[in-house]
């Protein structure tokens, strides 16, 4: 047994879960799929005194669309998202991205809410939530609040939840039909952690780009939007030159953390290439080409 001893709690409803969170505060930790938390506990990087297991909270296992806004319960398994028809219709980008999260056995257990709340700066799903201007529903004993993705990710592995709040739902507003999407990332080996990745949505009016969102993971302390590149593209005719220009404009803004797998310079260079490729793919899809 590798983790330090802990008290195990298995609430079966959101209400019970947030009661426990209120009771334990900083001495409690939410356990979702456990695919990241157990790693940290096995190395004793994290030693929670109370583990609040939300796996039995099955009321948070759902994917539904509400006027096109896709609502994903926090306890929904990543493998459920991967196979969801609703998600394929309303958030194809999310489905494309989740296939890059580790391996099938990990996605069978890992949850959408867990991945978002964990806020790993290199992680795929937070980048998609940010690209889609998603919202996060945080629940506590006294009620709920909804935060924009841009306000939720606060730093590496740090989110805006207070100790008594539980992330209960991820909401992804719809993009118009005909939107092209692309999620691309660079991994040493399929299923490994990405050195960097990018999520792109593009909507065309004729041949010109009337709406675009680009976000990146693995290039800063949180997932980030490439605002400069988005501004540069909006209103422009889509062409290889303008994609190149946008990618060029995005790269210097990025502040990758140095780590042994790739220097900041290398990651910036990757970002440039991947933004361009993702734009090309998203535009091809927006035009209905394969």
């Amino acid at each position: 047994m590798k983790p330090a001893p802990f008290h195990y709690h298995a609430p079966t409803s959101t209400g019970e879960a947030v009661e426990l969170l209120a009771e334990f505060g900083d001495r409690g930790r939410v356990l979702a799929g456990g695919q990241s938390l157990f790693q940290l506990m096995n190395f004793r990087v994290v030693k929670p005194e109370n583990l609040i297991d939300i796996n039995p909270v099955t009321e948070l296992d759902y994917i539904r669309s509400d006027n096109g806004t896709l609502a994903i319960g926090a306890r929904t398994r990543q493998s459920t998202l991967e196979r969801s028809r609703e998600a394929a219709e309303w958030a194809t980008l999310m489905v494309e991205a989740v296939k890059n999260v580790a391996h099938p056995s990990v996605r069978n257990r890992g949850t959408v809410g867990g991945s978002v709340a964990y806020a790993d700066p290199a992680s795929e799903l937070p980048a998609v939530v940010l690209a889609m201007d998603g919202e996060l529903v945080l629940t506590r004993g006294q009620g709920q609040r909804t935060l924009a993705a841009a306000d939720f990710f606060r730093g590496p592995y740090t989110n805006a939840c207070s100790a008594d709040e539980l992330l209960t739902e991820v909401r992804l507003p719809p993009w118009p039909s005909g939107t092209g999407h692309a999620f691309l990332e660079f991994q040493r080996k399929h299923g490994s952690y990405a050195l960097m990745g990018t999520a792109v949505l593009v909507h065309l009016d004729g041949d010109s780009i009337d709406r675009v969102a680009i976000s990146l993971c693995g290039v800063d302390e949180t997932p980030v939007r490439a605002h400069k590149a988005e501004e540069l593209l909006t209103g422009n005719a889509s062409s290889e030159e303008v994609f190149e220009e946008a990618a060029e404009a995005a790269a210097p803004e990025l502040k990758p953390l140095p780590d042994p797998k790739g220097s900041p310079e290398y990651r910036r260079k990757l970002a440039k290439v991947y933004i361009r490729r993702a734009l090309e793919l998203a535009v091809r899809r927006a035009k209905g080409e394969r």
Partner: protein
Amino acid sequence: MSHRRRISVVVNGSRHESEVEARKYLAEFLREDLGLVGTHIGCEHGVCGACTVLMDGASVRSCLVLAVQANEAEILTVEGLARDGQMHPLQEAFWEKQGLQCGYCTPGMLVRAYELLREDPDPTAEEVREGMSNNLCRCTGYQYIVEAVLDGAERMRNA
């Protein structure tokens, strides 16, 4: 403050009632409490897949699931593949195609292959590679493992 709980788990068709410490992983419970040492423990942090078992029909890393979380679940381990002393067609295929060298990763490989072929009984070699990238083989015998899974798929289709 070691916290213990009673659990009831169905493993390979037999129900087991047991009291376990909360921090004990499913892999450790299977090996130490039930003596089912076919499930191997490799990296103990979810990377290698040696400890892969099916939990309610879906493959999981049993080093990243607590035994208490398997309460009321159905588990299938490598020991549950053979029937009446007859190897499962996948096991026969791994044997004949030399889909193992040291054998350490094999239980996880077999369980993952079993899930993969349940979802797609007739995968291409490329799909097998992609699907089996879930698990690591430190002998790097992937070529034969892929051939064994393809051969096993054929045996299962013809069974």
